[in-house]
């Protein structure tokens, strides 16, 4: 079939051209969408390789707050008895401890939600030794990552209480699925004031 110039195409052919473009863009979004935030993350790191100090608030927050300098994460920790809280941010599991009490404080968040980057999208970028800061009840608790593991969703032991203060963060892995959990545990290394 001889190719036609675009200006010579009928309205029906143009409609089909438009639909073809939409199908192509939808396929691209389905395949690449979940990974696009990684591109901006690593591109940002290449430009500013040093840790971003703006993540850390100099003053202790009045509201519960979770800060992870490595991934420039700084958000309020939401409380609530229902998992729908997760739609608005990261959620401290109500059946677990709090930083001021000791034991195991567990905070969860979406990795990927409503076709967009979830709160814990970049949690997989953390490494052993990275710091995590929690502002809780007018005090600041600094934790250091001691282990990163992937477990099955049935591994409820990650929420079990611990004899020493510990922070546990978890989210879904791998991307686009909820088949496993990425679990980060961290030891308390400093409390201020």
């Amino acid at each position, binding site marked *: 079939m001889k190719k036609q110039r675009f200006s010579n195409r*009928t309205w*029906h*052919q143009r*409609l*089909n051209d438009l*639909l*073809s473009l*939409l*199908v192509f863009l*939808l*396929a691209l*979004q*389905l395949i690449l969408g979940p990974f696009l935030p990684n591109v901006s993350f690593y591109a940002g790191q290449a430009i500013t390789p040093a840790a971003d100090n703006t993540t850390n608030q100099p003053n202790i927050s009045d509201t519960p707050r979770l800060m992870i300098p490595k991934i420039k994460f700084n958000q309020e920790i939401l409380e609530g008895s229902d*998992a729908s809280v*997760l739609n608005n941010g990261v959620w401290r*599991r109500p059946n677990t401890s709090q930083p001021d009490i000791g034991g195991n404080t567990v905070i*969860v968040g*979406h990795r*990927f*939600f*409503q*076709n967009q980057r979830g709160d814990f999208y970049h949690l997989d970028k953390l490494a052993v030794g990275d710091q995590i800061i929690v502002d809780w009840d007018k005090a600041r608790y600094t934790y250091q990552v001691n282990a990163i593991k992937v477990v099955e*969703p*049935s591994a409820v032991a990650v929420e079990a209480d611990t004899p020493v203060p510990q922070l546990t963060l978890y989210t*879904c892995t791998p991307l*686009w*699925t*909820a*088949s496993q*959990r990425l679990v980060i545990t961290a030891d308390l290394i400093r409390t201020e004031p």
Partner: protein
Amino acid sequence: MKEWQRTVALVALLIIGAAVWYWLQQQYTLNFLQSL
């Protein structure tokens, strides 16, 4: 292939793609919430 057949095929592809997109999100959210 006639133009109208092409239109039907493309619209069908769009609907299937959107359904897959929606299904993936539902799977993710439901699986995560159910296991909490």
